[in-house]
């Protein structure tokens, strides 16, 4: 689910990003910012439980 959050960004940074978003293959500035946040969060957050992740895959036909 998405929610609307107002974040004030440096104008020139925003313009630089907006100019390159489509060239980089993103569909929107929001997608670009989300990706940047996800990449950084992955280095800050703890990894989840491996056992729990494996349990969630149970029943997927392609995998034993």
């Amino acid at each position: 689910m998405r929610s609307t959050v107002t974040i004030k960004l440096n104008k020139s940074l925003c313009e630089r990003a907006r100019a390159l978003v489509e060239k980089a293959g993103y569909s929107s500035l929001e997608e670009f910012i989300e990706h940047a946040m996800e990449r950084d969060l992955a280095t800050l957050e703890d990894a989840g439980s491996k056992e729990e992740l494996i349990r969630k895959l149970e029943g997927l036909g392609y995998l034993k």
Partner: protein
Amino acid sequence: MNVAGNSRRLTYICAALWILCSLHSTGAGTGTLEHAYVGPGAGFAFIGSFLTIVLSLLASVLSFLIWPFRILWLAVTRKGRFGKAQVKKIIFLGLDGLDPKLTERWMAEGKLPNLSRLRQEGIYRRLRTTCPPLSPVAWSTFATGVNPAKHNIFDFLNRDLRNYAPELSSARVRPATRFWQIGKWRIPLSRPSVELRRKSEPFWKILGRNAIGSTILRVPITFPPERFNGRLLSAMSTPDLRGTQGSFSWFSTAAEPGATEGGLRLPLRRHGAGVEGRLPGPDQSQLEFRLRRTTPDDWELDIDGQTCRLKSGEYTPWLRLRFAAGPLRKVRGIARFLLTVTDPEIALYATPIELDPENPALPISHPGYYAAYLAKLLGTYATLGMAEDTWALNEGAIDEEAFLNQAKSIQAEREGMFFNALERTRRGVVACVFDTTDRVQHMFYRQLDAAGHQAEDAPYAGVIEDLYRDMDRIVGNTFRHVDEQTAFFVLSDHGFCSFQRGVNLNSWLRDNGYLALLEERSESGDYFEGIDWDRTRAYTFGLSGIYLNLQGREAHGIVPKNEAAALKAELIAKLTGLPDPRTGDVSILNVYDSATVYKGPYLQAAPDLLPGFAPGYRTSWSAAVGKTAASVFEDNHKAWSGDHCVDPAAVPGVLFANRKLAAHDPGIEDMAPTVLDLFGLPIPKWMDGRALSPVLE
């Protein structure tokens, strides 16, 4: 307009009316006291009903007063919306895994008259699929018009670079993070979060922004549903109530409890004239049930306060079940039961407990009420991402007949939704994907010989042909909703071939010095248990690729970035043409470098190399879960005997359209741009596909 103020005024007026009516009805205004005391419950019930009536009347009056303006507004804006459109309506009938070789053969034999008609009136082409040719990857490309490095779906699985753990590539469900602990109960104070991992933008969102509505039914990788102008029912990746991708329960008086692939084996205890057992639900919850024989052929199942009649070999209808999820809190699911053995032992199969579409524990549709609307209108239906229980057949919990009945029943539910959407749609898009073609071919491909012909003496020899004919029937029924201003497409995301031999590339990497085990281990366990990462340069898991253990990317990466290209080239050279020592056949036709075949911002999540297996071969069952095995090659003895996880050139899909389109070498990435073009909308620059333009006659 001050909506809050108006709402308050309306409430005061309604309250005043209610007080006047109450005074009148109780006689207080006339001084008569002969009526009995009326408690507050009745008052609340009365005001509730009264408010509903008043508000409904007001809404009706308002709607009546403004309808001329609405009609005028729609007339003006519709001209803008559809001014450049070549069509009013587009129908996508997705037949997952419909194979061009079998389709072409049976069309030539006159067995698929409606598909032949479509080819005659419009076009038929083999449709280039994605690399790898997997449903989550290909349907994501269908929806977005981009290559996998732009939509982030490369396989069923993704890896967590921090610990090499596998996770579902398409959706991430995080449990509630704040709880209130009361004894053994934990009451969640926040909601679970569900995140769609597929990136970019599906065509139906772009259409929605341009006021063109869509109905998207069970197109894979749409869980959780995104908000847009239209209706959507989620598909592949939707979990069951236990949070898995579908785990069945297999009860038996003869069974020892324990796990089986894709489910649980559970005991049935004899009790009087019947048996009893416990159906496991989410978070350790259980539902007790009793099963008793009423006549030699009839049984009754008592579960969760309801009684259902059973006959051996016949599925029950969907039963609504409630599981305790804390004090005063229940979660709802649905399941079907099948009595498979009655003498002398008793065996009962229960489908995975699926989310109840009328009250789903997680969002499965947009708008949220759409799933419930369909259930109320057409009856309850399967909601699980991959609802056909292939593991139950693999493990023998159900037989072929029971599997086919289940698949047909799910198909019938889907048909109801599809034709309902077609009847309601005059403009816009209806896209619906049927999975039966994929699941049945996976489980019955063994009935075809190496050349794909039906083995004459096989007990289910005609199953796949019957399936194709049935899909042709759906195509024929769809024609009733197609007029000159409708574009009608039938497509599949990939084809099919046999799966006879599994290739364990982890074993090959080990034997060739690229993957190392910890010294005390002779083999690794599931998902790299026992792998020595400090000595491992490459590894595989999932169905599509090989990953380098890259420094600065993987948590224990050892391959310097400046050596990655050379290592990839070395592996490509050694693996291309890898012979099967038993047959001498080539098992890998090509190995693709993802940096060459993909382009986009999510490339880092992609496998580094994508082996294109020859038909008949696939990643072995053990390699798919990140395991090594004693030998590189192994026979596949499972009922799951057909597959498509091979070189994409070997398993293209099909594309039929009811109009002449210039479609030279069409790819599945061309579908989204084609939709936008047919509606006269510009194609975004980020899309990789191109519109299949009409041929002027």
